C-alpha cells in the first residue's frame, strides 16, 4: 500500500464485508506527543475469541476462495515499524474495534494520502452504510456524519458523484483548517 488511506480503505472494507451498517473512523494527531492514533469501530457480525486470536495472521482468512488474508497483518506490521502498535477487540453480534497508533513524525511513516477522496468514494458506493468520521489535531476537531448529511441533503444525495465531488474540497478544507500534517 502506498499510503495510509489505502490501509484504512482496506480495513473499512473488512468491516463492510462483516455486515456493518455503521462504521466510525477516528483519527487523532497529537504533534506535541508525536503520536497519531486511528480507531475504527463497526457494528458488523464480530469475531469469536478463536477467530480474533488469528485475525492478524497473514495466512488466516475467513474467505473460501483463497487462503491468504493480508489487511490486518499489513497495518500491524507498519504500525510497529513506525514505533507503535495495534489492538483489536471484537465480540460476536456486537462488532469489532481496531485501534492502532504510531509516531506521527517517524521517518518511515506513510503519508495519509487522499483520505477525504477515499472515504467519500466509499460513502458513495455503499448507500446502505452510515459513516462517522472524526479527525482531531491537538485540541481542534472535525466531524462528518453521513446520517446528518442525509438529513440535510436528502436520503439519496450521497449516491450522487456530483454531490460527493462538492463535499471533497469541504472535507479537505476542514482538515487544512485543523492543521493536519498527516
Amino acid at each position: 500500500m502506498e499510503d495510509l488511506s489505502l490501509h484504512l480503505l482496506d480495513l473499512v472494507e473488512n468491516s463492510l464485508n462483516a455486515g456493518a451498517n455503521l462504521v466510525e473512523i477516528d483519527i487523532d494527531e497529537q504533534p506535541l506527543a508525536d503520536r497519531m492514533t486511528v480507531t475504527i469501530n463497526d457494528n458488523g457480525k464480530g469475531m469469536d475469541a478463536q477467530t480474533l486470536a488469528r485475525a492478524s495472521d497473514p495466512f488466516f482468512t475467513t474467505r473460501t476462495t483463497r487462503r491468504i488474508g493480508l489487511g490486518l497483518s499489513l497495518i500491524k506490521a507498519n504500525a510497529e515499524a513506525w514505533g507503535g502498535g495495534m489492538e483489536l477487540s471484537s465480540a460476536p453480534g456486537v462488532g469489532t474495534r481496531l485501534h492502532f497508533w504510531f509516531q506521527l513524525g517517524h521517518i518511515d511513516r506513510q503519508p495519509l494520502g487522499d483520505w477525504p477522496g477515499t472515504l467519500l468514494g466509499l460513502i458513495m458506493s455503499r448507500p446502505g452504510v452510515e459513516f462517522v468520521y472524526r479527525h482531531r489535531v491537538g485540541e481542534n476537531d472535525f466531524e462528518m456524519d453521513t446520517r446528518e448529511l442525509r438529513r440535510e441533503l436528502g436520503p439519496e444525495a450521497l449516491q450522487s458523484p456530483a454531490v460527493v465531488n462538492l463535499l471533497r474540497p469541504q472535507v479537505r478544507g476542514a482538515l487544512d483548517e485543523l492543521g493536519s500534517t498527516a
Partner: protein
Amino acid sequence: MAKLKISDLAKIRDRVHEQINLREDGAQVKITVHMGTCGIASGARDVLNAAMDELDKSGRTDIIITTSGCAGLCSQEPMITVERLNEEPIKYVFVDNAKMRQIFNRHAVEGEVQTQWALAKGSEQ
C-alpha cells in the same frame, strides 16, 4: 467541533435537487469495483475515482457504482464487474484509470462490451 458550513450544504442541496429530479426508474447499470486487499494494493481506488468522475460527467442517474470484496483472482486485479439490466455481467481485469473511463462510456453507457479487456461473463462467486 468544526462542521461543514450551512451555506455549503445549501449549495449542495440545490445540486441534489437537480440530480434527483432526473431519476425515473431504478438503476439500469451497476458497476462493482472489487476492493479486497489485493485490489486496493493494485490501484482499485484510482479505478473507483475514475468511475465516479465519468458518472458525474455523464449526468446519468440510473447507473450505480458499488464496491465489493476480493473477486478471487488477485493476480488480475484491479477488477470490475459491469452489469446492465437483462444482460450477463461482464468481468474486466487489469483495469486502470484510462480503461475504466472507456469501459464506462462504451459498455456501461452505450452497451458495447469491451471484449479486449474482459475476463468472463457471469455472476459473482
